[in-house]
Structure formats: structure tokens, C-alpha cells
């Protein structure tokens, strides 16, 4: 046999050697969390989060690790997974063993609770209904705002190209949709028909519906699609900072939604991993001064007034309405608007 041939017979063996030595220093990378809270060993937490919190939790995780080490002497490593909120909830239900979930909307954590992985009263366990920070939907437009977009009705004008994620899979997409609906209904006072008309027109103007909010941001910023991006405040600021303030402007509409992304410990998995205490401490850290400050730094509106005041430039004044007030809660909103054959399906199929 020739040398090349021999080499390729040995290749699999070589590879396995490489990876075995690699896996050795990877510290049992295949069973995170199971190490549990045993003595001096590193504890692992898995935080399954939604799409636009990537930068927030990168910083929170590092800060929490320091704080926890200082307090208990124990090393903690928080791993993260990001994606559309509903997709992430589905993964947790199907067996992605998250110790904590930090999702875009309560409906998704309710779904996890319905699957029996945490108690249905999870909202009552942490302050402010388990929502450590809030946000709202704002507009990002190209420099100089060439299409003169100021308020929701401007998005429905013919010729304006809107970028927003798919409300069926993205929590942010649902916040944006409900923000438009609620703003249209409230502002004009002429009720459901007008709201439906306007939202349908907005989605007619949306050529791309990415499955997650981050996908939409990329579509708008890097691929140059669209005149206006609907994004939560944090994402809009991030875009301005990461991609360049000289290319985009943030427009705050007069009215928008009060987006409340909740957090919870997934009891079942945390129990299995023996990480309940540290998981709870991790979420409580979000309410601490440090946690609130980090949230504000990433342009999530913190609960603490000091942290909010410390935010450079401050948060613009936007009249914000809640899902409970306008839509009678998430279960009703989900059924009416986003379920199979719901309003969203009808308005997008009507225009085909």
C-alpha cells in the first residue's frame, strides 16, 4: 500500500487521539451542570436565553462569576445558548437542560411550566413579576431618516420597507407586532379594524421575516435591506454602537409596548444538577446593583432608579402600554394573533 493510502487509514485513529487529548482539557464538556455544587469543583449553569441578550449575558455571566466566587469561594461557569425565544423554550421542553431561562416573553416560560418543568407560579418568585429589566420597541432608520419615519402609521405607508422578525418564532417579533397593534388602536381610538388594517400594511411592507430578532438586525444592518428596523431598545443601541452611529438613527415612537422579558429557574433540571441555589442566586444577581447597572449599560431599562439615572443619555420618554392592559394577557394575545389561523396568519396570507 502506498504512503498516502496508509496515512488515510490511520487518519481516523489520529483524529480520535487529537480529540481525546482535546476533550481531556475540555473538562467533560459533554455533561455540563452535572458536576453540581460539589465542594471546590466548578459549578456549571446553563442559561438558555433569547436572541438579543447575547452581549448582556456575556457581561452578566462574567460579573456573576466574580461575585459568586467572592461570596462563596466557589467557581461558577455560566454557559449560554441564544435563539428565537419560542425556539429556545421548545428546546428546553424537549430536553435542553437549562438551569435558568431568560426568555423574551412570559408565554414561553408558561409553555415550559405546562410541560411540568417548573411550577406554574414561577412569576411570583422574584420581584416585579420575575422581570428584572424591561424594554420597548423602537425604530432604527438609516442616517438622516430619508423616509421621514416618526410614528407607527409611517411604517404602513406604501414604499417603506420594514424589517422585523417572524412573530411566530421570535419573542421580539411578537413584541413588535403587538406594539404596532396597540399603538394603532390606542392612538386613533378607532379600534380593531384600523389596527388590523395598519398592521397588515406594515407586514405587507416587510419582505424578510427572520426567525430571530438578531437575524433581522443583521438583515437590516449588514445586508442593507429595508428603511426601518423594528427592534427592542437594547438591540437598537447595540446596532448603533457595533455597526456605527454614523449610519443609523434611533427613532422613539410616542407610544410603544412595555416589553417584559422574564427570568426563571427551571426547577426540574436545576434539581437534577444540584444547582438550585446558585441558579437562584444568578437570577437574584440580575436585581442587584451590579446586575441592574449592567442591564442599563446594555440599554435594558433597569428596575432600580439609580441605575436608570446613571444611564448615559437617559432613556427617551415613551408612553408604554402592557400586554395585560391592551390584549388581556399573553394567553389571549397568543391565541388571537399568533396561533395557527390567527390574525397574523390571515394578514400575511391575505396578501399573497
Amino acid at each position: 500500500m502506498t504512503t498516502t493510502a496508509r496515512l488515510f487509514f490511520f487518519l481516523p485513529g489520529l483524529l480520535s487521539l487529537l480529540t481525546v487529548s482535546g476533550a481531556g482539557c475540555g473538562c467533560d464538556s459533554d455533561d455540563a451542570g452535572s458536576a453540581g455544587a460539589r465542594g471546590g469543583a466548578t459549578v456549571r449553569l446553563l442559561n438558555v436565553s433569547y436572541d438579543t441578550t447575547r452581549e448582556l449575558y456575556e457581561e452578566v455571566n462574567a460579573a456573576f462569576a466574580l461575585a459568586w466566587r467572592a461570596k462563596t469561594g466557589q467557581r461558577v461557569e455560566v454557559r449560554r445558548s441564544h435563539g428565537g425565544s419560542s425556539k429556545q423554550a421548545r428546546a428546553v421542553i424537549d430536553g435542553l437542560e437549562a438551569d435558568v431561562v431568560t426568555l423574551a416573553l412570559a408565554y414561553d416560560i408558561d409553555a415550559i411550566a405546562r410541560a411540568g418543568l417548573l411550577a406554574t407560579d414561577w412569576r411570583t418568585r422574584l420581584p416585579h413579576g420575575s422581570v428584572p429589566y424591561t424594554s420597548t420597541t423602537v425604530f432604527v432608520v438609516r442616517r438622516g431618516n430619508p423616509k421621514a419615519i416618526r410614528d407607527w402609521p409611517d411604517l404602513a405607508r406604501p414604499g417603506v420597507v420594514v424589517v422585523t422578525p417572524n412573530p411566530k418564532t421570535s419573542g421580539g417579533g411578537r413584541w413588535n407586532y403587538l406594539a404596532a397593534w396597540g399603538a394603532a388602536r390606542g392612538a386613533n381610538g378607532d379600534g380593531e379594524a384600523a389596527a388590523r388594517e395598519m398592521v397588515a400594511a406594515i407586514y405587507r411592507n416587510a419582505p424578510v421575516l427572520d426567525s430571530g430578532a438578531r437575524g433581522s438586525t443583521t438583515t437590516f444592518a449588514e445586508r442593507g435591506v429595508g428603511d426601518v428596523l423594528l427592534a427592542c431598545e437594547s438591540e437598537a443601541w447595540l446596532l448603533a454602537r457595533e455597526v456605527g452611529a454614523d449610519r443609523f438613527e434611533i427613532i422613539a415612537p410616542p407610544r410603544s409596548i412595555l416589553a417584559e422579558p422574564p427570568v426563571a429557574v427551571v426547577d426540574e433540571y436545576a434539581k437534577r444538577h444540584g444547582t438550585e441555589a446558585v441558579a437562584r442566586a444568578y437570577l437574584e444577581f440580575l436585581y442587584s446593583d451590579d446586575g441592574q447597572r449592567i442591564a442599563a449599560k446594555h440599554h435594558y431599562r433597569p428596575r432600580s432608579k439609580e441605575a436608570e439615572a446613571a444611564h448615559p443619555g437617559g432613556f427617551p420618554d415613551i408612553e408604554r402600554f402592557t400586554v395585560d392592559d391592551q390584549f388581556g394577557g399573553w394567553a389571549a394575545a397568543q391565541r388571537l394573533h399568533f396561533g395557527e389561523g390567527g390574525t397574523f396568519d390571515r394578514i400575511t396570507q391575505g396578501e399573497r
Partner: protein
Amino acid sequence: MTRLTPTPATRCGVATGDRPWARRGLIGLAAAVVSLFLALPLAFVFVAALRPGFGAFWAAISHPDTTAAIRLTLLVAAITVPINTVFGVAAAWLIARFEFRGRQALLTLIDLPFAVSPVVAGLMLVLLFGRQGWLGPWLLDHGVRVVFALPGIILATIFVTFPFVAREVLTVMQAQGSAEEEAALTLGASGWQTFVRVTLPKARWGLIYGIILCNARAMGEFGAVSVISGHVRGETSTMPLQVENLYNDYHAPAAFAVASLLAVLALLTLAVRKTIEWRARSP
């Protein structure tokens, strides 16, 4: 299904009746197609990866989450490829050398992963092994996690790369017949000796080619693994998933850096294929 085994170019085709202008035109057109459609994307991967400079490239490659993804990808390939190699050779021997009932059905089942969408493959595994699946709860009770963990990723990869080795070796074995094996057996060699001394060397080019195709696909699989992995950084994200993670993190250059490693893998695969073709032609 397809015969991917390189066919030795037979004769130096002299296309008669071809006018020089037609010949030149056709070559030019084909070259344009191949360079615009295939070479340009390949070149772009490297340009985009190295545009921010080598330092940034290195920083992207050596990020802990990325090195974990590289390790995971190598580990998955190192487990998947040997399993599919052993299975592939056994299946090829079985199908090429024996006539039995259900042979055609077996062949169809082996081919099926070629035709099934990777997403459907991932879906099937979630339905079977997920926490709400048919086998998942029982396995979880016994402490076995499949979905969103290494076993699931490996199962998905084995599924999508299942036919490669079997098909390549089968094509070679069918073409060669079994006269030499029978001779060896008549001369007193044991079955295993015959297999190692006669069959394997004869089928080696098909085998190697099957292995590198299987390896390339195993390292590059996206759809099936994406459905079943959970995208946990540093843990269940393979290299292709890490490309997607980084791209969505606004680290497009870093995404292209990882993509360029996968493109190098593709280039190596092509180079090995060419080498095999060349060796097979001059035995």
C-alpha cells in the same frame, strides 16, 4: 445511487469535427461557470476571513467557544467516521457478494439518508429521543441524555453520513467481482485473511474516497445537527453552528474565520480526491 468514485479518464478525447472556435468557446464558458459559481465563493471565504488582519483572525479562532466547537467537531467525526466505515464495508460485502431476500429493500434503506432532508433527520431523532419522545423519557430515567447532547449530535451525523462508505465500497466491489477472494480461499486462506489481504487492498480507493466524503460531511453537517444540538456555546455547538452563532453575534469576520477552516477542510478533501484518482489510474 450516484457513483462518486473517480473514474479514470479513459482516452484523450479528440472531439472530431470540433472547430477550434467552438472548442475555445466551450472551454471559456465552462471556465467562467466554474470560476464564477464555485471558485469565487471559495475565494471570498478566505478574503472575508483575513480582511481584518491575521491578529483578528487568530483571536477569532482561539476564542474558547470556537476551540470547543473545533474539538467537538473533531470528536464527532472521530466517532462517526470509524463507525460508518466498519458498517459500510460490512454492508458492501453483504450486498456485493450475497444474494438474499430483501437485498433491494436493504439497499434502499441504506440510501435513504441521501434523500431525506437533514432537517427531517433531526426531527425524527427529536421525536424519538426528546423528553416528550417515544424513547426519551425511558432513557432519561436511566440517566442517558441524547437530544441536545453529544449522543444526539453523533446519531444525527451518523444518519446523514450513513451511505457514503457503503456506497463507494459497494461500487468498487461490484465492479471487481469475487474471483480473487475465491482463489485465496481455495488456497487455504481463512476468511479474515482473505478479507484483509485481498478484499481491502482491492477496494482501498473506493474505501478511502468514501471515508473522506463521510468525514467532510460529518464535519460540515448543519441542518440535522442544528435541530438537535441546542446551540449551547462551548458545549453543543459544532463548527458550522458556531459559524452561525458568530454571524448572528455581529462577528461576521469571526464567522468567516471559522468558515475558512471548514473551507480548508473542503480543499483538503478535494486534494485527496484528486490524489486518489491519480493513484487509481497508475496502480
